[in-house]
């Protein structure tokens, strides 16, 4: 039996952060993960994260993962991979299966950071090869470089559905549709808008009726559902797809906490059965902590903070830091966590009903909630949208960020101080002085929501220049022609690429500037290469 001061189960953002925090204070820490690769969900996340600088906002998930791992290893944390923890017994003993061998460890403290498992739904044909989890799609394309198929139906419009939908397009797949049985898109509007402008239709109040095929998926039928979630006869639609991707929610993997004798409670808004924890993440069993998705489905950014909070508490309990030091760190992490938990989509504990207005009082865009894009007419009330007078003066940045999400890189990166979010990071970004905007484009390439555009209505007679963030291959070259599309992906007019800028800071996001007929300046938000007029 090998003893460690801290045993951490799960090498995702929560587990690694707890390990870093405890090891930095001098504790001897081991982390077990059943996977062959550390990082948990983070290594599949290739998009930029929301949050503030302290949450590593605008960093891509896998880079955050690389950094956490290097930090943990640098502090002497032992990370054991391919090691599945199968049991927890009295006195904090654990059984680990490593390469078909059982090994036994005992810890003074244990952190359960096992994350979540994906939910599934069943429907006729749901077991056919070609029906996969959203996590599987990410593993195939982002870890192994393999497209899961050619045309995909995404079931579920939460952040996972819309983010994986976007990543599928980046990998070269077509996304035929995103459907959801709910009447509103569950994910952030800015995430939905990224794929809506690439022409992906959203079908809300729809469910999947059937996956077709005998030994693999060769199509799907979707159907509208009424308010009682019953199928509406005659509303069936056939979609020609070879992959059906399920993104219908996550459930905390709390089995080990149950084995350890921790009290569990059913929390619908935390995703299911979760261990009851105090504010430090300690469960009802002394010295056993839970952090991250296992304690309630949230995000990597909050998982990291929960890990830190637990690590800090453990260090104090065992006398590695003074009470005052502990309290100072705890206050810092707690504040940071509460910042993330605010806003429209926040996890601050209360039951969420679909709000009708932003915290600032603007009516939320209904097209954004049902179709995934902003209607131009709904746009003008938001504080990030420069009015006609400002646009007449020349180049302006347009912040199409209209929901209270925890995010502020736009304010952070603007060298001219044009953008203000304020202390509360869920505030809507405000364009405070568009006259000072230099057109540097830093806000455009940094915005994790890809919700910022540069518009120059004075570019040339009858023509405007519109700059958009662009993350697809092949990268269009200056001078090439294509189609300017509106926020729904519908083709507006021919457009010409003026410039394509990409640098180390943009981390793969290019700033593409296109020339469009002047009247489309406030509509054109996507560039589709190729001259032929196509349907959006």
């Amino acid at each position: 039996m090998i003893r460690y001061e801290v045993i951490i189960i799960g090498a995702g953002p929560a587990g690694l952060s707890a390990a870093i925090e405890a090891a930095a204070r001098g504790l001897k820490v081991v982390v077990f993960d059943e996977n062959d690769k550390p990082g948990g969900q983070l290594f599949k996340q290739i998009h930029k994260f929301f949050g503030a600088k302290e949450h590593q906002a605008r960093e891509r998930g896998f880079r955050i993962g690389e950094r956490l791992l290097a930090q943990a290893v640098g502090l002497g944390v032992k990370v054991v991979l391919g090691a599945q923890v199968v049991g927890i017994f009295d006195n904090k003993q654990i059984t680990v299966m490593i390469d078909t061998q059982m090994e036994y460890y005992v810890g003074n403290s244990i952190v359960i950071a096992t994350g979540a498992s994906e939910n599934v739904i069943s429907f006729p044909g749901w077991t056919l090869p070609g029906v996969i989890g959203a996590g599987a799609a990410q593993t195939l394309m982002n870890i192994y470089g393999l497209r899961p198929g050619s045309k995909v139906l995404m079931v579920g419009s939460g952040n996972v559905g819309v983010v994986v939908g976007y990543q599928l397009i980046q990998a070269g797949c077509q996304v035929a549709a995103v459907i959801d049985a709910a009447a509103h898109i569950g994910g952030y509007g800015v995430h939905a808008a990224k794929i809506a402008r690439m022409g992906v239709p959203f079908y809300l109040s729809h469910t999947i009726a059937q996956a077709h095929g005998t030994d693999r998926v060769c199509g799907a039928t979707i159907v509208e559902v009424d308010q009682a979630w019953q199928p509406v006869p005659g509303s069936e639609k056939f979609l020609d797809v070879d992959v059906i991707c399920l993104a219908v929610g996550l459930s905390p993997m709390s089995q080990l906490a149950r084995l350890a004798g921790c009290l569990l409670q059913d929390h619908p808004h935390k995703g299911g059965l979760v261990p009851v924890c105090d504010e430090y993440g300690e469960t009802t069993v002394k010295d056993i902590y839970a952090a991250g998705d296992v304690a309630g489905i949230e995000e990597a950014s909050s998982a990291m903070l929960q890990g830190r909070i637990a690590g800090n508490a453990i260090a104090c309990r065992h006398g590695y830091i003074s009470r005052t030091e502990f309290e100072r760190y705890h206050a810092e992490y707690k504040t940071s966590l509460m910042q993330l938990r605010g806003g429209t989509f926040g996890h601050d504990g209360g039951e969420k009903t679909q709000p009708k207005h932003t915290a600032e009082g603007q009516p939320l865009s209904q097209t954004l909630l049902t179709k995934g894009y902003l209607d131009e007419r709904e746009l003008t009330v938001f504080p990030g949208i420069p009015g006609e007078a400002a646009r007449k003066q020349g180049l302006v940045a347009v912040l199409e960020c209209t929901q209270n999400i925890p995010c502020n890189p736009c304010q952070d990166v603007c060298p001219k101080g044009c953008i203000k979010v304020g202390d509360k990071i869920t505030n809507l970004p405000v364009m405070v002085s568009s006259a000072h905007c230099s057109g540097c484009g830093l806000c455009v390439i940094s915005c994790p929501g890809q919700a910022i555009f540069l518009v120059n209505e004075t570019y040339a007679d009858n023509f405007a220049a519109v700059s958009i963030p662009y993350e697809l291959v092949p990268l269009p070259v200056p001078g090439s022609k294509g189609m300017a599309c509106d926020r729904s992906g519908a083709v507006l007019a021919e457009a010409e690429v003026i410039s394509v800028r990409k640098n180390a800071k943009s981390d793969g996001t290019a700033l593409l500037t296109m020339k469009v007929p002047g009247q489309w300046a406030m509509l054109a938000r996507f560039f589709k290469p190729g001259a032929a007029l196509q349907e959006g």
Partner: protein
Amino acid sequence: MYRIENHPILPEFHRGKRVAFLFDGKEYEGFEGEPIAIALRDNGVMVHHYTAKRAEPRGIFCAIGRCNDCVMIVDGAPNIRTCVTPLQAGMKVETQYGTSNEGVTGRQ
């Protein structure tokens, strides 16, 4: 045919050397060290096994070793989760028909 050669965000994928393996007696190619399931899917193989009771086809579902839908017979051993088993040169991979996997399959 499903390999991503050029990705807008990710640098090159670290792939092992090209190796040959046998699937149901026919020779296929994949990259050494990648999961067998990846090499199969790249070659268009979707069905990994058929369930015992109803002979229903199953293929990759979770891709992280949790659902058991991707089990096959590998070098004679049944119930091998191909999504987490690295491909090696000369491996003999076979479609599994029912039997021993019954009861462990995630999606019955």
